[in-house]
């Protein structure tokens, strides 16, 4: 199992989160002050796991009988998951009271979902991916419908569960076919046998089913139908988790399992990636324009961003993968920031989610409006924020992979998406506010959004060190 102390160090993030889950259950059951302690305890767990992963990212080791990879790219993903979850916890402290749900289950399920995500990112065996996927997905299904009294939440949860289970079925069938043809579930062996196996139609079918199942999870067209309803129905912070952590985890699973494709065998699957990328980007950007509910708008923007990231996969080279990882890092913080501001503006009973609620925000809450502007500009891909660099790297990878036409479509889609991101800024700054509604102050929420903003700016101004680190692992 664990051969030496170094391996133990490698799986320490998993142990931290796992132990954190158990201790959180105990805190919730026995502590009288658990409502105050639990969020901060979760934040502590996530920060510890996240920074530990980042610090030890250089030690690449395969542990647990070739099932788990610690160090390298998985650790970057662990950092994304954990720090993103930490910021979300910070946001949730005041949001949960507004939304009206059980705080205990919320934080515990958050931790379990992160554990599932980490298992997927570090997988070296197809079963590990499946296990992580299930842990994450079941946590997500429950988190989506955490407030049983709201009809939309129930709808969101059921929809996510049914479609998600269906997608998982695709993934399992794909794994079964891969196992049948490759005679192993170990990713290393499959990668080694990949050139031989690509001649085998059953193997290709298996990989395709696997990809289709995960395309559902990353919200790519045409598997995106669940996204707007689920994001709209779930709590805002949970929607933030789905769009960032869930997406990142699914991408990490694709990168981990199918790394063979991205080392020179992209031609078989290039049509698939290219088509879903083009449609995701254009569909997401165009339909988002007509949305009136800000959570639905962010949901469609999430579909578009998945499209951009798939360009990185379609490029089929190391720069593409590095671009995807960097983009996910940048996107996580931009999106958590955007959903965070939405959660701060939101009133009790899920009010104030229409676009008209943002009119004149700049004169009532200038700090919130300024932060929202930063996130909107970042999501639109304007320099000097992180979103621009993510797109830049991915477009470079695309051009290097002879997919310039895909980069051009990406650029056109970015131009279209500028409209609905800027529309929020127009509403906030250039209109006077009509509706008089109360916006409760939340210090922890403001701190969370502030941290997200700082990270977006840092990633935007100094992306070099992160990208260097990511590239060195590939």
């Amino acid at each position, binding site marked *: 199992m664990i051969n030496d102390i170094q391996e133990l160090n490698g799986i320490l993030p998993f142990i931290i989160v796992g132990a954190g889950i158990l201790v959180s259950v105990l805190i919730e059951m026995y502590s009288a002050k658990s409502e105050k302690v639990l969020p901060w305890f979760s934040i502590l767990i996530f920060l510890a796991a996240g920074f530990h992963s980042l610090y030890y990212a250089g030690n690449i080791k395969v542990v647990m009988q070739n099932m788990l990879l610690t160090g390298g790219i998985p650790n970057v993903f662990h950092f994304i998951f954990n720090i993103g979850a930490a910021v979300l916890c910070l946001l949730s402290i005041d949001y949960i009271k507004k939304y009206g749900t059980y705080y205990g289950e919320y934080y515990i399920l958050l931790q379990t979902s992160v554990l599932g995500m980490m298992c997927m990112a570090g997988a070296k065996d197809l079963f590990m991916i499946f296990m992580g996927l299930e842990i994450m997905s079941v946590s997500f299904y429950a988190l989506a419908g955490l407030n049983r009294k709201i009809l939309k939440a129930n709808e969101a949860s059921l929809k996510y569960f049914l479609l998600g289970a269906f997608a998982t079925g695709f993934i399992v069938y794909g794994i079964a076919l891969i196992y049948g043809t490759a005679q192993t579930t170990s990713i290393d062996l499959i990668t080694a046998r990949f050139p031989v196996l690509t001649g085998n139609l059953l193997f290709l079918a298996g990989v395709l089913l696997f990809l289709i199942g995960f395309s559902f999870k990353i919200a790519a067209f045409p598997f995106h139908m669940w996204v707007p309803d689920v994001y709209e129905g779930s709590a805002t912070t949970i929607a933030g988790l789905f769009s960032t952590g869930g997406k990142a985890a699914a991408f990490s699973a694709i990168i981990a399992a199918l790394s063979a494709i991205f080392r020179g065998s992209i031609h078989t699957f290039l049509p698939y990636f290219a088509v879903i990328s083009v449609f995701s980007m254009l569909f997401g950007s165009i339909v988002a324009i007509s949305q009136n509910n800000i959570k639905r708008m962010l949901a469609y923007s999430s579909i578009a961003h998945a499209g951009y990231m798939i360009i990185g996969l379609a490029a089929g080279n190391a720069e593409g993968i590095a671009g995807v990882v960097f983009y996910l890092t940048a996107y996580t913080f931009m999106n958590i920031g955007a959903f965070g501001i939405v959660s701060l503006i939101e009133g009790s009973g899920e009010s104030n989610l229409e676009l008209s609620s943002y009119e004149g925000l700049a004169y009532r809450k200038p700090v919130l409006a300024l932060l929202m502007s930063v996130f909107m500009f970042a999501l639109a891909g304007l*320099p000097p924020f992180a979103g621009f660099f993510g797109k830049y790297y991915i477009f470079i990878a695309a051009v290097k992979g002879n997919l310039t036409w895909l980069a*051009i479509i990406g*650029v*056109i889609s970015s131009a279209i998406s500028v409209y609905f991101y800027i529309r929020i800024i127009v509403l906030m700054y*250039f209109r006077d506010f009509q509706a008089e509604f109360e916006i409760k102050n939340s210090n922890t929420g403001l701190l969370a959004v502030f941290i997200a903003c700082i990270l977006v700016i840092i990633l935007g101004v100094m992306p070099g060190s992160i990208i260097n680190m990511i590239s060195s692992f590939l």
Partner: protein
Amino acid sequence: MDTNQLLSFILFTPFVGALFLLVFQKDQEEQIRFFGLAISVITFIITLIVYSKFEVLNPNFQFVQKIPWISNLNISYHVGVDGLSMLLLLLTTFITPLTLLSSWKSIKKNIKEFTIFMLLLEVGMVGIFVSLDLFLFYIFWEAMLIPMYFIIGIWGGPRRIYASVKFFIFTMFGSLLMLVAIIWLAVSAGGVVGHFTTDIVELYSIGPAAAKNYQNWMFLAFALSFAIKVPLFPLHTWLPDAHVEAPTAGSIILAAVLLKMGTYGLIRFCLPLFPEAAMTFAPYISVLAIIGIIYGALVAMVQKDMKKLVAYSSVAHMGFIVLGIFAMTQESVQGAIIQMVNHGLSTGALFFLVGVIYERTHTREISEYGGIAKIVPVFAAALMIASLSSIGLPGLNGFIGEFLILLGAFKSPVLNSWWYTVFAASGVIFAAVYLLWMYQRVVFGEVKNPKMKELTDMTPREIFIFAAMAVFIVWIGIYPNTFLKVSDKSTAKLILQVNTPSQVTLSK
């Protein structure tokens, strides 16, 4: 302090100033205005120091500073000036304090934010003119959109939101295509040099070999983005709206500097990096430029709103500059560069004066005016000087630029036809028509509108602003060599660079 760091000082002084302004309180209006003005004046003084040390006989980049930034992609913070950008840098840092001064009384709400946006805009503009790395250039190009968008959208006229959103999306669309072209160019340059590079100096030395077979497409992608900015007919439709709806200060900056960024991009990138494509497309672009000259002038003639008239005159003048660039001779390119400065001064002055009179009467309709010469003689004199400069009267700056451009276009081997010059010259006549006619209707004649009798003449502040511009309007008109010699050697080098590879391919 190393002289090579001076450019970074010019870049970061307004930025630091904007950050400092954040701590000012909302009600400290006078202090905010003075502080903003002081920062922009300091920036101008540093630019003057750079100018004084500028070696006019050196055609290469000077005051170069290169700091590696994202080493993985070979992107560095690389800045420098040469003859092509020195004059534009001076124009930018000269116009910004004048613009801030002009907004003293006209911007009444959210003065702190306005000054911050103006300073950030200055950072963006300076950055574009001094960047020597395509990536850095692109960042400044895009980043400059945000303050301009806010300036039009918050402090503008009644249709400001429409104008600012149109401006933003139009410009961003072009620049996104340029991004793909930059990446494409960098990757194919990587094929030649061995590593991916966006460094302009390096790309110049590789030359058009970097672009190879796709030169036409890359040229079009870059040129489209710049053409939207210039604006070149038929991509000019954002300009009248943006100019009319922007506050006076915004219009001055938009006309004086922002439009020049498009033409600067054409000279800096399209000509030297893609010379064959430039020569292929030169006739077509010149035709569009001439259409712009004539169309802009004709539409300006029928305008009832003074600001819209000046806006369309901008389209016409920029057409001249584009013609000068694509005629690709020493005279025409130098004419284009000096005309960029001239247009900045004369159209900036025109917008300023329209703003002066608008502040008093709150109308820009020409029909509301008439006969104000007796009531505001100083203003009338100032408007006369600005109009004549814009028309291109010999003795004032406009003539120098137009003459050089027409001369260069006449003997241009690329355009190879007199007809361009003939049609462009007719644009000069049209300019006289619309400007003199506007002047006559506004200033001369009988006083039709009784409201006009209460007009106050220009205040000392306004006289100072106009006088500062007028000094250069006359100086460039009478002794242009002071400024022409700055761009002389660099233009010669550019023309050489453009012509040399074509000789190589021809000799094959």
